[in-house]
């Protein structure tokens, strides 16, 4: 008893008060119920198993309790790591056998009511347990609603379980009943129905769980939309006002205030308009549009100018588009630093074969042939980055005319678009 499963102590910590019993996925003897209960109650798993065994002796109550918990408690999430103690497990098997034996013996010598556990129905129960176990395994691998049983061996086991259930019920009917043909037919039909219901319990439970999960998700997204509407009307408006008012005043503080307001606006907007059901905004490492938007936001924050990216279409974030984003960031930084403007336009378009980015300002512009060395270096880094990956850079500028940097990059052969 001293040697307990190492799982409970570390796993029970997060919000222990709100935890629901979750059945073990790894280290389960039958269905992980005892493990889950032990973790929930923070007691050694062996004690729980012994309790179930003792309950089995009391007219099979342990079997019923175990079955109930099995049906109503969800399996712990896949990928939960736990060290499995083989000795613990062996003891578990022993206890299962002991529990069943106790149930059989005590009900045989005991009163007649619990005699039903004997023989055929016992077989049926074991069959049901086999099928349910199989369903548990299936739920771990596929997320599909219909894939409850997976693999050839799994199908075999499920069929075996079904046969056991059917055989048990049939034997029970034939052996213990002595009735007329009509009555027998009725009873057989009912028994078959019961058998089917017992066998399909995992399916039903899963359906119910999925429905309630969907409902929860819907409620959440509705609530979120409502909050969004509120925030939209109050906070975004206020941020817009702040930006407008600070635009009139031109000093350093006003600039800083405007920068903060813009930043806040951008973050709030990202949160408000991220796709419903999408808990985190699209990570910038997977998609070109998000990466470019982040780059624009960074430049905006660093130099207190407004950088408004307009992005049409999207592409995967790979070496080429990464180089493109880096070059675009450089171009935006240049515009923010040297053009002397409040606003930089960024336009990106993803077409079938190419990705283009245009960074434009209406600022000072410059004479391309007579640039100071530091700027020349930056232009080089844009050129080098893009051309290394087969892209082209077009620079259009003249003193007083503003600057536009056009970057074009062939797309990597990969027709799949990130929606």
């Amino acid at each position, binding site marked *: 008893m001293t040697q307990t499963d190492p799982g409970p102590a570390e796993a029970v910590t997060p919000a222990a008060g709100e935890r629901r019993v979750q059945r073990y996925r790894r280290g389960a003897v039958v269905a992980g119920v005892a493990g889950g209960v032990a973790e929930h109650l923070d007691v050694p798993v062996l004690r729980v198993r012994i309790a179930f065994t003792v309950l089995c002796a009391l007219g099979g109550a342990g079997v019923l309790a175990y079955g109930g918990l099995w049906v109503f408690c969800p399996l712990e999430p896949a990928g939960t790591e736990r060290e499995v103690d083989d000795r613990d497990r062996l003891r578990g098997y022993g206890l299962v056998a002991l529990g069943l034996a106790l149930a059989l013996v005590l009900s045989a010598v005991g009163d007649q009511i619990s005699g039903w556990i004997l023989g055929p129905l016992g077989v049926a129960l074991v069959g049901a347990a086999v099928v349910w176990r199989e369903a548990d395994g299936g739920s771990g691998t596929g997320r599909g609603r219909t894939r409850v049983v997976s693999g050839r061996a799994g199908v075999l086991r499920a069929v075996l379980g079904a046969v056991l259930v059917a055989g048990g019920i049939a034997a029970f009917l034939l052996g213990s009943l002595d009735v007329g043909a009509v009555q027998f037919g009725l009873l057989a039909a009912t028994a078959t129905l019961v058998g089917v219901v017992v066998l399909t319990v995992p399916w039903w439970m899963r359906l119910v769980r999925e429905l309630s999960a969907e409902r929860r998700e819907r409620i959440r997204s509705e609530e979120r*939309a409502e909050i*969004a*509407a509120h925030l*939209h*009307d109050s906070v*975004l*408006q206020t*941020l*817009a*006002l702040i*930006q*407008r*008012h600070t*635009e009139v005043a031109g000093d350093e503080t006003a600039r800083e205030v405007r920068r903060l307001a813009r930043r806040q606006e951008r973050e709030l*907007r990202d949160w*408000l*308009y991220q796709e*419903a059901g999408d808990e985190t905004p699209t990570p910038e490492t997977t998609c070109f549009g998000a990466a470019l938007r982040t780059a624009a936001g960074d430049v905006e924050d660093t130099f207190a100018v*407004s950088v*408004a990216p*307009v*992005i*049409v*279409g999207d592409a995967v974030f790979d070496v080429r588009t990464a180089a493109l984003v880096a070059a675009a960031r450089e171009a935006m930084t240049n515009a923010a630093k040297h053009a002397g403007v409040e606003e930089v*336009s960024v*336009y990106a*378009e993803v077409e079938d074969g190419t990705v283009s980015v*245009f960074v*434009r300002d*209406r600022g000072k512009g410059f004479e391309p042939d007579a640039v100071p060395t530091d700027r020349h270096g930056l232009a080089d880094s844009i050129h080098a980055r893009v051309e290394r990956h087969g892209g082209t850079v077009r620079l259009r500028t003249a003193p007083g005319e503003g600057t*536009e940097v056009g970057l074009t990059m062939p797309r990597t052969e990969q*027709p799949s*678009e990130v929606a």
Partner: protein
Amino acid sequence: MSTTVDTDPARVFIVDDHALFRRGVRAELEGPGVSGVSVVGEAGSVGEAVAGIGHYRPDVVLLDVHMPDGGGAAVLARTRTEYPDVVFLALSVSDAAEDVISVIRAGARGYVTKTISGRDLADAVVRVKAGDPVFSPRLAGFVLDAFADRPGAAPPVDPEVDQLTRRERDVLRLLARGYAYKEIAAELVISIKTVETHVSSVLRKTQSSNRHELSRWATDRRLV
């Protein structure tokens, strides 16, 4: 850009449920350095707006997209047929495609965000009054996106309104890059008038096309 010769100042009516914001816009449009615009009235709700527009018959209505009782789309629905001469310019803090597209499809002739400067706003007012749509770069981007030929997209039902011509696409691209009409004309070597014609035709297509993206954006709007 004051390409239009100002005969009369544009009479502007402001619809926004935030009094503070109305006051700010009014102050800016009436402030120094801004000409060609005069604010005739303002309204803080859909009902007030409908009554005010009927009473003042303004040239241009600056319309907030989000209002508690139905928003800009409701105002448009209740006044568009009765006062076809009134031009609507949507003004919103939102940058979401659903908002932009839905208010354009409801009949607004332009869309600017609320962070626009007073002078740019006055300029936009004068332009929509003269009959030109006001396409912000973002709106141009959304329209390009909506009309993009994606693999697997449904074939156009009516090519007349479901597809953009090559030239219209070019104009939109430059708009999205932040070019002004004059600059677009210079870039594509066409007249400003032609640019305006292209943009108007894009606006018409955006309003009447049944393309999936457009209708989806207009109906999926979560914030009303």
